[in-house]
């Protein structure tokens, strides 16, 4: 399931697995099961308690103790997640978690990174290969060569 497509290497909701396996399981559950009546909203909080929270179309980000609820879509906190839009929901919430929240950081990082390595050069690799090159030991699997 493609959630979000960057040029070469699309982010998928699977990518959230190694960030937060439990959350991943939750999302998987949502995708695999009927969510009608779960009272999910398009909202999201990074708080651990998120899972016990009623899901909403907004999300709550806890910054230094203060929980901030952000909408994934306009007025998301009032839009219920249904069978129809649950994929959209998963996509958005993953994107929020993996990209939006750290957008500035990523951008700053890439700015520095691309000063050394031109984007088009690094783009020939995939993420596993990149990991292999940066960190050496592939902790995933060694059948990297395609």
């Amino acid at each position, binding site marked *: 399931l493609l959630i979000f497509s*960057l*040029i*070469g*290497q*699309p*982010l998928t909701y699977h*990518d*959230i*697995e*190694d*960030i*937060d*396996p*439990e*959350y991943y399981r939750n999302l998987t559950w949502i995708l695999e099961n009927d969510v009608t009546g779960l009272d999910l909203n398009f909202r999201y909080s*990074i708080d651990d308690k998120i899972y016990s929270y009623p899901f909403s179309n907004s999300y709550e*980000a806890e*910054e*230094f103790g203060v929980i901030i609820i952000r909408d994934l879509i306009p007025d998301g906190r009032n839009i219920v997640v249904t069978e129809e839009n649950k994929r959209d929901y998963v996509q958005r919430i993953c994107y929020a978690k*993996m*990209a939006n*929240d*750290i957008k*500035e*950081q*990523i951008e*700053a*990082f*890439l*700015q*520095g*990174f*691309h*000063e*050394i*390595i*031109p*984007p*088009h*050069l*690094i*783009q*020939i*690799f*995939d*993420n596993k*290969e*990149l*990991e*292999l*090159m*940066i*960190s*050496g030991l592939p*902790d995933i699997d060694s059948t*990297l*060569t*395609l």
Partner: protein
Amino acid sequence: VNVPHSTHPEIQRIAHLMQANSARFDAEGARNIEESAPEVTTTQIQIIGRQRNQALEIVQQQEAQPAELGAAERPQANNEPRSIFDRIHDEVAYLQSSQYLQDNRRSAEFNENFFEDIRQNNLAAEEGEEGVRVIRGIRNIFDGAGGGRNNFLNIFNQVLAPLESGRRDRSMRPISLLEGSEFIPIFGNSGGATFRIHTSNLGGLQARDGSRAQNAAHSQNRAQNDNEAIEDFESQLLEQLAPAAPRAAQREERQPANEEPNPFEELRSRPEDEAQPEAAVAPENNSSRSRGRQGRRGRRQEETQIEEEKEETKQQETPAKPQPQEETKTPQEKKPEPATTQAAAAPESSISFEAFGLAPDFLEKNGIDPVFFNELDDELKYEIMAQYMNKAPAREAPTMARRTPPNQPAAQSQPQTQPQTQPQPQSQTQAQNAISADFMSALNAAMNLTLPTGQAQPAATDSTSNRPANMNIQSLVNNLSSSLAGFLGGNTSQNTSQNTSAPQTTQPQPATTEQQPAAAPAETADNNAPAQAQAQPQGQENNTYNENLNEALDNAAFIASLAPDLREEILATAEPAFLASLPPEMVMEAEAIRARHGMMRMNPLAARGDTFMLDDDQNGAPEALGLSIHDLANRVRRQQDPHHERVRKIRNFFKEALSKDKTLGSKLYMPDEKTLEAILKLMYMSEESFERFPYNVLKSLMLHPQTENKVLDCLLFLLKNPDLGEKLEEDVFPCKVIYEKNSIEKNYRVVYEKISLKILFLLEQLTRNEPLSYFVAAPQEEGADKKRDKKKSLQSLNNIKEAGNKEGGNSPLLELIRLLSRPGIANSATHMKLLLNVLNNITRHLKTTTSKHKENEENAMKTEEPKEQQQLTKGPQGELEASRFKLDKELVSRLCACLTNPTLEEDSLYKLSNIICIFCTDKQNFTLFIAEFKLFINKFSEDANKMLADKMKILKKVISDPAAQEGDMTIVQDKELLASNFNKRSTREKEQLLMNLLNRLDAETDYEIQLNKILKLIKELFEKSLIEFGKRELSQEQKDITTNKDSDAIDTQAREKVKDQFRELFEVGQLQSLWINITEFLSSLNEIFANNWAILSPISHKLQPVLESFFIIYKILNDDEAYEIYRKGKSVRLRESRKPVNFGISRLISEGEVRDHPGLLEDSFQRLRQTKLDSNEMLSLMCEKNKNILNMMVKQNPHLLSDSLSIVVKKMPKVLDFENKRSYFKNELKKLKRGYYSSVRLQVSRANLFIESFNQIMQRKPNEMRGKLNIEFYDEEGVDAGGVTREWFLALSKEILNPNYALFKPAAHGSAFQPSPQSNINPDHLKFFKFVGRIIGKALHDGYMLDCYFTRSFYKHILGK
């Protein structure tokens, strides 16, 4: 009046040479040792410079040589005691090895002691081996130790210089011993001072020894390249020596062929001399020049010095002759004091400047650019050559009056330099003026001055080259040599007589010319006026000269009896021998030939007792000239590279002058036909001597347009007519034969082959740097062409030519193109390559001229070579539009046919594409080419298709039915395999069989290779033409912007048209099916070998062209790279043009258009995709299917990825193996890294690693970060050879994850990290992230690992966008 004709330096020199020559033959074995010695020592010395530790050993080696040397000459030397010398030598060696001398101060001390020692014991003065060793020791010290060079001058002055005159054996003299030394070149400018010093010393010693006046000749000879030095020289010299001359001359005459063992040394040292004259003479020149500039202040002193200098140089050169021996010794004893005082005085004046690095200042003060100044001497040689030739015809007796005597320029340049000193601070422009004026006068001087020397020199070469013959025909020899000397005496005496008149005139002249300010170059015209004035006093001299000449001719009757042609030929054939005297190993070979040829030639020579008239003077000169020039050119070639630049410069300068002053052109020397013949004839010599072909001379000569035409005409003619053979006569210019080393090649076919190669080479050289208008002469000159041909040089050629002229009448360039398909040329790779080079050169200039022309018109655009441009604007080259060359169909197809020529190399292919590209700037040509290409592609793809289909069939059969193999095998006619296959059908066998089959099949892939070639070419063409168009549009646009136009639309249309045309190329149906076939073929291969790729690897290179061509086509069709470039360039240009405010409106318009363009382009591509196969799909299909083959190819040939397979990297990186990608990545980074060599130094402490690294790294500019990291931890020693850097990276990566910085947070399971959303707790967090980005980038860049893992999503972020 008995004018001392043999006073002239040359006579002496020749005599010596002859003596030396004979001596050389006597001492055959010794010579080998001798000749190899200098080389060995120089190299050794270089080693010493570098590895002082090994010095001891080397010195010992070096010992061996002198020992041998000594043994050869003075066997008894071995018996003499040598303890002191041994000691000294050991000392030196020890000191060198211990690096003791590296410290300047210490070395100075040491030197003082050392030399004091030497001085007191007069060790160096010892004759023989010991002295040599001491001197060599001294030299070693100075070569080895960095310091003490200055000191050396003093020492040299005091210790060695006196010896110079004392040594009987020239090779034993300090100077010759030091000649190979490292320190002389190092001294550069000031090196001259060394020589100056010692020469002045010597001069002091012998100043009053009038009887040795003749020796001064050598100094003159030596300084021949040098203008002012010579001027000074001559006038002064003659002044002083005139009285002494007759005596010397007479003596000289009496024993011209005196055979002495000693002079042998002269010859030995000759190679050295020739190799080094620049080093030695140039500085000398400097010194004398600067002295001249010192003006009247040091006038008196100056004069004496000059005399001295002259004399010492001569001393240097002269092999000690029997008579002067005693004389040389006595002055040394008698006049040590004067010598030293002189030496002391010398440094005080000008010498000290130069010796100790003050030269530049000094020069600058005088308003002379030191660089220019330095160049002058060397450059001049070239000009001198040209100019000398210039003057040669003027040598006819009747025109004597026209000749400007040497003293005239001398006088002129002297005053010129003097005024310069007077106003000390000078403005830049003035300085410039001075320089150019200086230069011109120098040229003039050179012209005149080379006359005597150059003229004499050919004679010298004459004598040397004839020498072997002499060996064989002894009687002839003596006759010849003496007559030669006499003859030359006749010639040269004329000069000397002029010279003698010089002093009288020089004295008054400064006064008059002084009033002329240092003037512009155009002044040359004025120069002639005084020259003529002077010619009158010379008229009298003329008479004497003539008498003299008659006298000389009596002697010279013999050599004179040579018919010019014949003699030329002798010279030509003997030439290699003469040349060979330089590199020793060649001498032996040459000798044999020379002897043989000598025999052959001498006899008819004797037979021809014709009278050789007074006009021998005229005829002989040019011929001899050819040789002397050759000689000079050779010498010059030794230092070619730096030289080349200079020559070009000087030539440009000259051209400029030409364009400024039209009259100068007519004054320029136009060598007569004989001269040209002589030069061109050199082509007919064996290979090794051709390497030394004086093409620089030719080039210089070709400054004269008519000469240029003649030469090129001639070359082209020879090139065009391979079947001249029978028509040619013996002995005349277009030779029928080639003089090989040991034989004469008479088969004209072979001759043509070789000659054409040489001609092509020559043309390549000639066209390399300068546009030759000849080649682009318009075809309509047909009539003129013929006329030219008719009245053209070489009468002998004429009748032949007319016969061959029927087809002529085309522009030479087109002729050349036509040549491309000549079987003789087309079949030889080297011919082809050269010819293409020539064409490329020509067309390249065509292009530049046209573009420049345009630029001039627009009066904008930066100009890279303003000089040339300037000259171009004046010339008729403006019309040189490439488009003027309407190639007809035939030519186009010829050009294209080259493509299929199997001998074509990659490099030439590229050149060919260049050529075609240039031609394509013309629309008509372009369409022609396109049509031609279409044909080719059609044909080839059809063939390839057929072949592929066949292969497919076979393959399929093989796969489907092993039994059918039998039938196939018979088809393939492989019975053996068939048999074996019958018996066993193990899979193994089958595979093998298949492989063989494939091998065979692929052997037939010529078509594909050729196709590939064409496609490559088209690709290049496509890209280039797009860019070209882009550029043109750009310039046009620029114009438009200023004129507020929007012809942009038209441009776009034009571009579209071009694209369309290219597109058409590929809309050939055949191609399409070809791709389908290829894909199928490959995929079936894939199936067969799915399990066993290893088998395929040997043949994968054969598949390569197929695949490559696929990708190339794909690229052409889909690549908008070129367009991107174009667009980028445009937008950049637009941005630039935005700056001026008034462009606002037009900017808007064009911006709008830019925005529109992509749409247009998209459209066209869309169309393309629809009409053709869906190339994108095709590509991915192709890549997927042939992944394995692709990877294999890439593995074998990694640069493919950045070349023809770049499209794969761009669009389908997935299919590539990680290893392949990584190597590509590394290579690309390496390319980026180019130019950033400085390392990034970081000093960090472990405690504050992160912050300190951050601070230091973020200060750097991005590009600086490409340099090598050099990390240093405080308080820790350790050289960073990679280990420290690795440690730093590891430590830093841990720090990056340090929760205290809150930059990253661990993922749920803790091992992987990703940026923390809360990092903004840290106010600088974004800077830190940037820093981290750099660090990680740098680690990747340098291939270091980091000790941290990130989440998958983070990696994807890195990869994304």
